[in-house]
């Protein structure tokens, strides 16, 4: 079974936010080597998801990298508020 990156990342983001209904995770593009995922959260939650010095964002990226590496792919995550 292939890993569903959208659900994985959503699963990592959701417990961190206070507006779970506003969390949007979307795969923007996917080819043989690179996956681009966009994460949108409520403006109020942006800080929580990124963390001090981007610590949480980097942790989430690291976890995503590992799962993508298993399928010999790279993954980039863009985190933004709307």
């Amino acid at each position: 079974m292939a890993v569903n990156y959208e659900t994985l990342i959503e699963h990592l983001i959701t417990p961190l936010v206070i507006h779970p209904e506003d969390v949007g995770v979307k795969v923007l593009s996917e080819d043989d080597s690179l996956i681009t995922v966009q994460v949108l959260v409520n403006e109020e939650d942006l800080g929580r998801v990124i963390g001090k010095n981007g610590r949480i964002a980097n942790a989430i990226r690291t976890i995503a990298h590992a799962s993508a590496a298993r399928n010999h792919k790279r993954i980039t995550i863009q985190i933004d508020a709307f």
Partner: protein
Amino acid sequence: MKTLVFDAKNDEEALLHAARELRVNPSYITLSHEEKKGMLGLKKTLTYTATVNVNLLDFGYDFLKQTLSQLDIEATIEAELNSETGAYHFTIDSDENPLLIGKSGKTLHGFQTYMRNLMNLYSEDGVNVILDIGDYKANRERQLEILATKTAKEVARSKIPATLRDLNAYERRIVHTKLAEWRDVTTVSEGERPNRYLVIKPKE
């Protein structure tokens, strides 16, 4: 357990306020309220009590389990609360240990950072979370102590400082601690994050 008592007009407003103040996802908050009649019996306010309703150990365990199943990795997870230090220990064992550990423990530390942040959001006082995969940390510690001793001996003999690179804060600490008692070498960490490195210097 995190709790908050406050006044609000209705449930919806109360839940959002509680989530904001307690800084957690509203689905983990339990609300209860009492009605207070105003002076003339016209206005009424509701006094809410919001509680973050999680058992941290179960919460962490369930979260890891779900995450690993989303990663499509079968793993056994042990969760334990150390009653002396108050630290939460999680140990993962799976067929994909190397993947979960990552290059020099990078993924492991990502996981740990994430878990620490997550669980601290849901707990009232700061909790320490320690994550290990296989016996990575214990093995790494032993390896580092051997490396530290070997390098220190060489430095003591040659009187030329030696540099250990690519160690994270915890790993540098292990080396510092290991060599703290040595008579003929001193250790310092130099450089700025993320390029900090450890230098073992001969003592004058």
